[in-house]
């Protein structure tokens, strides 16, 4: 059967003939090329970004579930954790320590977490505990957390400066686009950044530890009990100050890991973490505030939506529908407006399902 025989009858007029002159093999390859381009520019970045958002949202959701307020300082806590880790990394690098091919930051991470834990515990002592003892309304705590946010923000900028800092070392790629092309013979390359891979692996480990802790240990169960019914938890002999302390420590760990992974994957700039607050809250709310599984799901929903909507699909479309030569970039929204995506999803969820996808506490 010749190629011409396969040409659909409606193209026989000749106008579109060129586009459809394809062998079956090339048909398949085009589809593969489209998929690889999609995976390279949408899926992989979204998975990495989603993991970072999920870790951030887990911190927000734990504070909401156990301490019962929306912590606006969370983005800047992430910045603080990343900053502490970067300082540690620089020190290690100056000492000539390296973890090649892994980034040195992994070695500095435990110290970063410890420093952040100390920082949030001090904040709790100095600020939040007072309002807790007053039994202040959640809305007051939210405003208080905004104050903490500004102070943390200022502190981070004061210590490390407002500029962008790069601290990623070690191998850049697990596989580069060129290697992938040579390996597969495809036109499109799939570059797997080592930081993206690291993000996903570390996120999985952290989430596994978190869930094991919450579901299997006595302290974790106390925390769930406290989140479930505070009055009853107190009357069951659960010490609230211990629960609060453990919550902050775990939140510090989550925030630091999220902050460092984001910094490794993109770059560290204090202002970016402030901006992350919106997608992180959107993730936590979309998943259902107070629900850890929801926070993870929400993180990926927001990340995929944001990346998909702001990606220029011109290339992918070019492979799938060769006859169509789009004028523009086939991009729904410019990346400059990416935060609008979080905002849009947030509004839709709040309108139609205020408790979130996984039934958290209603707002």
């Amino acid at each position: 059967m010749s190629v011409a025989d396969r040409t659909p009858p409606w193209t026989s007029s000749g106008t579109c003939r060129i586009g459809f002159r394809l062998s079956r093999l090339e048909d398949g390859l085009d589809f593969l090329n489209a998929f690889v381009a999609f995976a390279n520019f949408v899926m992989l970045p979204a998975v990495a970004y989603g993991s970072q958002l999920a870790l951030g949202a887990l911190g927000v959701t734990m504070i909401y579930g156990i301490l019962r307020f929306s912590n606006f300082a969370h983005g800047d806590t992430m910045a603080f954790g990343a900053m502490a880790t970067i300082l540690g990394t620089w020190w290690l690098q100056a000492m000539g320590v390296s973890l090649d091919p892994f980034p040195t930051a992994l070695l500095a991470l435990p110290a970063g977490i410890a420093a952040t834990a100390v920082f949030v515990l001090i904040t709790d002592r100095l600020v939040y505990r007072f309002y807790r003892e007053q039994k202040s309304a959640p809305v007051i705590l939210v405003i208080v957390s905004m104050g903490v946010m500004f102070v943390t923000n200022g502190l981070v900028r004061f210590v490390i400066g407002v500029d962008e800092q790069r601290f990623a070392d070690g191998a850049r790629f697990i596989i580069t686009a060129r290697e992938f092309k040579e390996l597969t013979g495809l036109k499109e390359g799939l570059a797997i950044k080592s930081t993206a891979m690291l993000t996903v692996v570390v996120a999985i480990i952290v989430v596994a530890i978190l869930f094991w802790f919450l579901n299997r240990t006595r302290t974790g169960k106390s925390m769930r009990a406290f989140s479930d019914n505070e009055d009853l938890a107190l009357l069951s002999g659960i010490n609230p100050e211990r629960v609060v302390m453990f919550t902050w420590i775990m939140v510090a760990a989550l925030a630091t890991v999220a902050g460092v992974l984001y910094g490794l994957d993109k770059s560290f700039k204090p202002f970016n973490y402030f901006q992350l607050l919106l997608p992180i809250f959107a993730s936590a709310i979309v998943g259902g505030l107070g629900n850890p599984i929801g926070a993870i799901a929400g993180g990926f929903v927001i990340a995929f939506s944001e990346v998909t909507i702001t990606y220029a699909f011109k290339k992918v479309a070019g492979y799938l529908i060769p006859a169509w030569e789009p004028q523009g970039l086939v991009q729904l929204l410019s990346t400059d407006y990416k935060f609008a995506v979080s905002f849009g999803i947030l509004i839709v969820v709040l309108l139609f399902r205020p408790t979130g996808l996984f039934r958290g506490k209603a707002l």
Partner: protein
Amino acid sequence: MIRVEGLHKHFGGFHAVDGVTLKIAPGSITGLIGPNGAGKTTLFNLIAGTLPPTSGHVFMNGEDITGLPPHDLFHKGLLRTFQIAHEFASMSVRENLMLVPGHQQGERIWNTWIGRRRIAAEEEGIRKKADEVMEFLTIDHLKDERAGNLSGGQKKLLELGRTMMVDAQIVFLDEVGAGVNRTLLRTIGDAIQRLNRERSYTFCMIEHDMDFIGRLCDPVICMAEGKVLAEGTIEQIKANDHVIEAYLGTGLKNRMIKETSSE
């Protein structure tokens, strides 16, 4: 055991508890009755540390425990149940019970890693205890059910079960019998008496069912409008004119007169 002195609780201008002074003798089952809104639950809240009193003092075994947080009181052996049953809704019935004994080994974070065997042994003991309690309260078929899915009466039983998980000294029961069917009510009554005799629990219980109170309690305290109206045996209370006027109503008095005259 428990001594309450001049306890006041004001909500704005409203005096929910208005100068209550009373004693609960060790080893007793004290009944607390009174009309709706008399301030009984509020009094429990003050004693158990759920609410801070406006003024006044609470003593336990001579020690001033006013304003101590509930978890401290728990470890001193003072427990209470809620009138509107509380539960950890997302956990199973068994988990609800197993959470109760505080100061477990597993609560110390290092033990989570280095003391696993000790934790396991302790958990085994607690699990056994929880199973016993559930069997005793005839809710053992519900052990893996989400506590939030229990019926109102079953939640009440779970409340009672919680107090049986540890060695309490004094337990404040806020209408455990309300919404529980008659046969189960007998079981609960028996349980209370057994705990009282065998494990020397002291009880103070709010109840509206006069038969239930009459069967279990001595003495009985009657409250109205935030004040203690009368205190005495069930017969004395039933015969007290103030109590009849404020709470029991004349119907009961007439019935009692009939009963006594027909004897």
